[in-house]
């Protein structure tokens, strides 16, 4: 099957700033694909190129089989786009916004209501409220409804969950999973590493470069160093002492513990525990741990020199 998105050698600069350096990426039809990276990584630039709002300096982007430069009109009617910043009409009501977008795309709310019912039904009690007066979570649901009202084949979502609390984030991803079941291809960007596991495949983006593209399991398999979860009473000192250990590759806080990676092929928990004991750290616990998405992202950042320092 033809991929929903095919990007080959795409580059984009703004003045002296290289936003994207030679990106190659392909997203299959029906995939829920995550574009993971921090602010300034190039996520928005890439999405704006796919939306036909920006032209690449070099390379080629194909969306739903159409060229993003020559055939932008065909793309625009077939995609749904939710920008990072709330971009609906604040002075129009919930209902008016939805009808406006339906009209622009030459359809009606009724025609595709099935698709948005799940999301829009939560907004119906407020349908006469002005969009500007909605809470953050409701604005997000309205924006998603408006992006879906013409039943797009591809949904492009730019950081829909940024600044949203953990509960609403979880609900948003549940909505995306249901949309995927309806056959819509979804590309979603996020700075939250933990959301990677909700995607079929993810791309790690850092300073305009792709660090990795794979399934969540495939990405974590890239982390090869032995990894230990270490905890002790004084966490800050624990991190400092672990980094001072001669074979230390890295030591970073992870929730209630510290993840320690070793430079050698193998490391014994007992050896690290003895070392930390000798440094006077108390209430120690040291155990092997499976690397997660963040472990891998950080390791790749440092390996590939995408890091800012």
């Amino acid at each position, binding site marked *: 099957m033809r991929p929903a998105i095919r990007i080959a050698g795409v580059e984009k600069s703004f003045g002296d700033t290289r936003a994207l350096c030679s990106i190659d990426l392909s997203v299959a039809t029906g995939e829920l694909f995550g574009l993971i990276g*921090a602010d300034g990584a190039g996520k928005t630039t890439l999405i704006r190129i796919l939306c036909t709002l920006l032209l690449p300096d070099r390379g080629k982007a194909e969306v739903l089989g159409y060229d993003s430069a020559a055939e932008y009109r065909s793309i625009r009617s077939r995609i749904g786009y939710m920008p990072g910043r709330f971009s609906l009409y604040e002075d129009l009501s919930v209902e008016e916004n939805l009808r406006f977008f339906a009209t622009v795309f030459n359809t009606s709310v009724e025609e595709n209501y099935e698709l948005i019912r799940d999301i829009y039904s939560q907004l119906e009690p407020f349908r006469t409220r002005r969009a500007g007066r909605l*809470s953050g979570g409701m604005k997000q649901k309205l924006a998603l409804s408006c992006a879906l009202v013409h039943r797009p084949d591809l949904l492009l979502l730019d950081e829909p969950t*940024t600044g949203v609390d953990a509960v609403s984030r*979880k609900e948003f991803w549940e909505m995306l999973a249901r949309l995927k079941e309806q056959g819509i291809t979804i590309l979603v960007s996020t700075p939250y*590493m933990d959301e990677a596991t909700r995607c079929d495949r993810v791309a790690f983006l850092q300073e305009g470069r792709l660090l990795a593209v794979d399934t969540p399991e495939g990405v974590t398999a890239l982390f090869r160093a032995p990894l230990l979860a270490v905890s002790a009473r004084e966490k800050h000192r624990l991190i400092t002492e672990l980094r001072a250990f001669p074979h230390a590759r890295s030591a970073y806080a992870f*929730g209630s513990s510290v993840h320690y990676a070793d430079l050698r092929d193998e490391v014994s928990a007992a050896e690290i525990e003895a070392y930390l004991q000798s440094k006077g750290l108390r209430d120690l616990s040291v155990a092997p741990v499976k690397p997660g998405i963040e472990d891998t992202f950080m390791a790749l950042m440092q390996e590939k020199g995408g890091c800012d320092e």
Partner: protein
Amino acid sequence: MNEGVIRAEGLTKTFGEFRAVDAISFCVAEGEVFGFLGANGAGKTTAIKMLTGLLSPSGGKASVAGFDVYREAEKIKRNIGYMSQRFSLYDDLTPMENIRFFGGIYGLGRREIAEKGRFLIESLGLGPVAGNRLGSLPLGWKQKLAFSVAVMHEPKIVFLDEPTGGVDPLTRRRFWEMIYEAAARGLTVFVTTHYMDEAEYCDRISIMVDGRIAALGTPAALQAEFGVGSMDELFIRLARPRAKEGI
């Protein structure tokens, strides 16, 4: 904990019929890293505005850095530090210009600003880029500078409102290491975040639900109390009722 740097007792804010903050009580000790969590719309921002002297409470008592939130709001503003992801420094100014500007706002003398400025530029390794516009610097450097500027007038307490939003995981951790170091020197840190792993980095946390404090304690004690295995689970368990209303 009588000598808490923040003390709130029955602190309340109502907007018409709506009780945005509903009689919250807690104490934050000197040198503590206190995580202030809650879903969007739970009342965190209103509570922070009262604690930073920006909004007068409707009821209850509170003092911050020894000053009363009703009568001494201006003194509170001068004796705290504040940093958020949304507003911190000016991108069009150089690092040194930012330091001078904020030093002036905090009422530091010209010589003090120059000394502190030199120290900050050097200790943060900003020497080579001291004359560049801040906007051209990597986010990680900007954040460290923003934090340093927020505490350059040596407040007892700093409020960090989602300081790490949108930041890569490495920079996020370096930022937290900076928080730890500052707390070890006695600075009290009051921090909000949507990253549940960061909640674990706090000495104690509170979780606000519908204007009230639904949980308060060390991360480990709260997980044991509610029988959950992670902060994420705890947060979702507590904040769920409100989220169901479609907020």
